């Protein structure tokens, strides 16, 4: 793994980046400049510009930071004393885009904007990228209305603006792993048609970057006792872009762009818990099972809400083929939704989780582990092995890795002298791939005396002991399988035919 901070070197990239000094007036969309972020200067790309109260503001994406940290900044945070990278100049459409957005800034937030990442090119070498260029151009030519054109632009710009420093860096990383990556990664070049077909038949995660590279459209949401900053775009009604705050009812998840109708709604809403059957209850949490087809409105509301925090979640298709397992804590006010995971009624790829989310206001309190544990408990009841749908988010990856590690290490530490991967999988409802992933990641799979062995490393054991000590102090939250009252739902061929 190479260092992360040598991203400036344009050397070796096929097309040199045009750099130079800029003034506020000459900053354009697509320009990369140094922006002050938490005390340090980071390179950031301007995704969007608008003028508020006579002052220009910029929507920027920090390189190497997750998109959830994209934000609106004032001009004074941009360091104009350093050179900026100009966007690749060769596309005439881009200027048009730029113009139109400047003229109608307030309505165009949703526009799919140019992103610096050439996501489709990451698995290739720089040479391959440039070779690909002409071939890829016609891919996004489903031109229709005005917005379409802009989509077209965004999907082409990355191709054109290939010589991104981070590309090179990624290549370095990838080269170590080139074989595996080539096999592991799904076809990088998802055509729109492929993508939609895939979504139609299964899945809730988009593989397509054009689907997700959007400017965040909501400023803030109010839900229950909290105000939450959204992380990503979510297709709430388009009128909401102007709202300072979107109010979400904690129980029915209905949304309002003003406090008056929200208060009126609260005076009428009688829902006190997720609208489904409670299938699990202990003294800490309850789980409710909700059928997307039967509770369409609620599940749509839930998806809209969770899309604010899940980058790859797609709302392209309706919620019918999913079941939603919602975790809630209880008090006299009702059952407060804490997190949920959705699950395909029938997953062709054996996923036991489609999307999984702990609401931001409840994060880092161990709820995620309960959700994951519950999803595996369901798989055990079904007698199946399960794995979460990919791609995982960064938080998802960390959450799952921690869970897998804990479960597998616990299992191996029960004094056994032998274990095989499949048995571990069967005992934990985890796929063998995930078991291997965990063991490999923890450096527990070794080759000794001409055979493979599983090593309980000192580090792993120590980590587990520390965790246990912590649990003793804080108390351990876990799912009790005996409290689950659930039979795997059965869906007939007819329901499959008739859209679940």
């Amino acid at each position: 793994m190479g260092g992360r901070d040598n991203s400036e070197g344009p050397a070796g990239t096929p097309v040199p980046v045009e750099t130079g000094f800029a003034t506020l007036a000459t900053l354009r969309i697509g320009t990369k400049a140094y922006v002050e972020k938490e005390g340090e200067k980071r390179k950031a790309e301007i995704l969007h510009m608008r003028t508020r109260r006579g002052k220009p503001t910029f929507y920027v994406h920090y390189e190497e930071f997750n998109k959830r940290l994209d934000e609106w900044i004032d001009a004074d945070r941009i360091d104009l004393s350093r050179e900026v990278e100009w966007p690749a100049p060769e596309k005439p459409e881009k200027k048009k885009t730029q113009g139109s957005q400047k003229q109608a800034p307030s309505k165009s937030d949703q526009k799919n904007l140019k992103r610096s990442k050439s996501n489709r090119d990451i698995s290739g070498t720089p040479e391959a990228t440039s070779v690909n260029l002409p071939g890829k151009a016609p891919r996004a030519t489903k031109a229709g209305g005005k917005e379409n054109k802009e989509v077209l632009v965004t999907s082409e710009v990355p191709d054109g603006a290939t010589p991104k420093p981070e590309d090179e860096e990624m290549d370095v990383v990838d080269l170590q792993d080139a074989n595996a990556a080539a096999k592991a990664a799904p076809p990088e070049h998802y055509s729109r048609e492929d993508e939609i077909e895939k979504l139609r038949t299964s899945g809730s995660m988009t593989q397509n970057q054009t689907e997700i590279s959007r400017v965040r459209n909501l400023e803030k949401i109010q839900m229950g006792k909290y105000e939450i900053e959204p992380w990503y775009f979510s297709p709430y009604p388009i009128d909401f872009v102007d709202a300072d705050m979107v109010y979400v009812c904690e129980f029915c998840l209905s949304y309002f762009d003003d406090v008056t109708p929200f208060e009126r709604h609260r005076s009428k809403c009688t829902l006190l818990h997720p609208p489904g059957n409670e299938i699990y209850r202990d003294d800490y949490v309850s789980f409710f099972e909700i059928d997307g087809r039967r509770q369409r409105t609620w599940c749509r509301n839930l998806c809209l809400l969770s899309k604010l925090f899940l980058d790859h979640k797609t709302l392209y298709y309706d919620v019918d083929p999913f079941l939603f397992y919602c975790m809630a804590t209880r008090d006299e006010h009702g059952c407060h939704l804490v997190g949920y995971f959705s699950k395909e009624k029938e997953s062709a790829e054996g996923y036991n989780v489609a999307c999984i989310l702990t609401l931001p206001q409840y994060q880092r309190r161990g709820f995620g582990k309960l959700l994951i544990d519950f999803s595996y408990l369901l798989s055990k009841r079904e007698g199946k092995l399960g794995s979460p749908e990919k791609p995982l988010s960064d938080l998802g990856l960390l959450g799952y890795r921690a869970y897998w590690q804990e479960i597998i290490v616990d299992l191996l530490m029960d004094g056994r002298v032998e274990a095989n991967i499949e048995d571990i999988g069967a005992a934990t409802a985890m796929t063998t791939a995930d078991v291997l992933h965990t063991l490999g990641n923890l450096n527990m799979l070794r080759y000794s005396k001409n055979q493979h062995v599983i090593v309980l490393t000192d580090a792993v054991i120590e980590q587990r002991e520390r965790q246990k000590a912590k649990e003793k102090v804080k108390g351990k939250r876990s799912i009790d399988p005996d409290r689950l009252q659930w039979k795997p739902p059965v869906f007939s061929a007819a329901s499959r035919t008739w859209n679940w």
Partner: protein
Amino acid sequence: MTTRSSGQRFRQRKLSTKQNLAVLRENEIDSVVDDEATRHLTQKVETGVEKAEETEHHLQAIISAQAASTGGGKAAALYIPTPDAIASKLQYEDLYPRHFTQPATYIRFSSTVEDMVGVAYCMTSDDAAFVKDFNKKKSKSVQCTEDQFEEVMNYFEETSHTKQPYAAVDNSAMLPYEDFEADFDETISETSRRFAKAIYEHWKNQRLLNGNRPLIPTLKFEMNLETDDSDPYVCFRRREVRQVRKTRGRDAQVTEKLKKLRKELEEARFLMAQVKRRELLTRDQLGVDKLIFQQRSDVKEIKRKLSIKGDDEELLINQRPVPKPKLKVDPREVRQGIPGMVPKSQLARPDGRLVDSDLVYLEEQQAKRADAIDGFIEENLMKHQKWNIGWVDQTWRPITPPLEQAAAKSNFRPVFTSSQLPTPPASVSSDGAVDQMDVDQPSKQIEPRRSARIRYATPPDDVPFQEQSRFRRRTGRGGRVMVDRRGVKRQKLESIDERIADRYKFSGDSSEDEEIYPVDWTDNLHIRYRIMIERQGEKQHAQAAVQGRRSIDNHNRSGSGHLLPPSNAG
């Protein structure tokens, strides 16, 4: 997506997932084995994270920190920074009252959001201002409440949505108030309708301000426009239904199913309606009963006041007739019309309980019937004895009963006549046969009786059974009376022609043992006769001969008067 590839990668190293691997501690393993294979095994693992995001700063920081810690180092308390969630300034307690009580059992719930949120339209601040303004001008009695306002607004919104679903797109004119008024339905209450006209103006203004789009912000669904596909706001598209082959059979099947469901629904509804009706009637009846009771007690009071003495029975009118009809309706007596029989069953139910409330058992019924018949016979026997007191039975054998054991052979009764034979008695009916058997046994003890000229009795022992003449009277179809005879010998002709003999072959309804041979010298009778002659001939030759002859004569005469020639025997 990692499944396949990682498996492959490990297979290349010949790691079998089925094979048992030794679980070791770090100190149990040679630390110098850091060979190429191990390094490759653990170096890079698919994360399942989008490639572009895998390299993100914070994630990488944590991953490398963890890698460091698994290598023995200490993990720093790192986390991925996320945008804030802070406490809200809104008054939570006001917005979310404490209404929830947890049921003991797990919650089962199927109502939808639409069921639970009431009127979908929620007032905006503009609306609130309008209502306030509106109410100012009105008197206290006709104030428009927020609920009523929302009800009306909701009605306008919904109606215009159904009537002009594409109002925002095709620039159609606003629906005039009259159109709404004509369509008022149950979703809008009478009290709210009073305000409809005034609110309409407000609604119209709001709509116009909004470009005739719905006032409640809505999600963008697919409109089948070209731009749908790339519009990020268009969401929750319908998945195209998988095409099912459409056949007439399937159509019919579906129709049938729907019809059936409909029918069942109707039936259930009808049932419920009937139940409801029944319950209402019951209620009415209870009311009437109560009224009657009250009025009676009133009457009682009045009688007491006026000191009228007399039956209080009349106050209990509807309690008296209860036992009466039951006695009449005993079905068994109707069926069992045995004359002279004591109507036991009547006595058996003095309590006057409802007859049809009792379960009637077959065994009971049969036992009762048998009792009745026994009793009847017993009684007749007593009568007989009474009649016969002072009389001496001069008959050869006393009158039946006791009768002879019913001959297993047939139901024929032998008849002996001292003079002319009248019409033979009716043969025993088949259903009576069993009873007769039963009756025979007890009646044997009864003293023998004499009777008149005709007796129905066992024939003398000395006459062989086959030789006895027997008669039987039968009643056939259409009331014909038939007399059967048996053992009646015809006149034997000197020379019976074969042909003539053949004519009689089937004249009787006899079976083969009754076959008539004109002369059969091997016949039992004749053999016996000859034996007798032989035995006695030596001592009392003459006497025996005379006796034997007499006996045979006697027998033959009593049968048909036809004398068989015992000659040739010598």
